[in-house]
């Protein structure tokens, strides 16, 4: 199967996972930012199906020279937008300075056909560093 070679703001979708959904899906449409991150960006996002389960690969990019922390989790939805799994635990991730890192994410159930990634950077504009409102 040939993967569509899309970059930038476009979401890479392998196979016919999202067949029938109207319009192009962008990375931005799959992200829920909790505040504006100053240094951490989602540089790429790939979705594909493995053994009936949705699998994601998210590429995070740290534009700063210092290590930066982010917190992330995924909301798993069916193709009508209903959430099909409990709220996930927030996961901390340390990104080394100027590094790009892939995060592999597997869906918990074959019912999951769509997703939203919730992202919160420790240093973002909404929750400045040291603020206890990080998850």
């Amino acid at each position, binding site marked *: 199967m040939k993967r569509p070679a899309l970059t930038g703001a476009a979401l890479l979708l392998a196979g016919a996972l999202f067949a029938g959904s109207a319009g192009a899906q962008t990375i931005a449409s799959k992200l829920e930012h909790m505040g504006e991150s100053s240094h951490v960006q989602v540089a790429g996002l790939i979705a594909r199906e*493995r053994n*009936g*389960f949705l699998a994601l690969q998210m590429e995070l990019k740290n534009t700063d020279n210092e290590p930066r922390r982010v917190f992330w989790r995924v909301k798993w939805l069916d193709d009508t*937008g209903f959430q099909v799994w409990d709220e996930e*635990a*927030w*996961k901390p991730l340390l990104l080394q300075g100027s590094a790009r890192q892939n995060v592999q994410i597997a869906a918990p159930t074959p019912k999951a056909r769509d997703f939203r990634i919730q992202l919160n950077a420790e240093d973002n504009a909404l929750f400045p560093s040291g603020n206890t409102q990080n998850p």
Partner: protein
Amino acid sequence: MNTRKTSFSSLGAAAAAALLLSACATVSPTVGSGNVTYGDAKAVEQVTNQFGSTDLQMIAETMARSLAQSYAGAQTKPLVTIADVKNKTSEFIDTRSITDSIRTQLLKSGTFRFATDIDGMKNQTDELARQNQSGLYKKQGSAKMGKMQGAQYRIEGNITSIVKRNADLTDVYYKFSLMMTDIESGTIDWADEKEIRKTTRR
């Protein structure tokens, strides 16, 4: 199966007006002085560098999803039992709680079936004996002796830690390893690991 989706986009005008009118009279449905607060059970716990709720949640999630994806294509759901996860760290960790979470997530994913494990065997055999040997139950509808299913696979693992300290910081590294063994052949058919590093500055 026919499904019909109905979307609700916003509050109706009447509902919004009712909310505005009642807003000034709102009383929280709580009892007590307010010294107790409920928090977010899914939040990242950074109280100490000891094994915590976030570590348990991340390990269970990683292991359950790795296992579920590996066996999702199987013709029949594998029947497994959970043995021990040995705690080889220097701290107390309830490893049963980790395996309970893994089992729950695998059952919810619909990819595995679980046979009664060693911890649950006494309750299982007591109930079978009560239904068959006490003379209190109708034969019809009672659970029969000799019908229990043995597991095809056994899940077991280890959790280890390396702790290093100097004048400025304490570094704790955890490694959780899980494997699934084919009970008949004795071969290890699946294994995965999750590593966690936690550092505390003094």
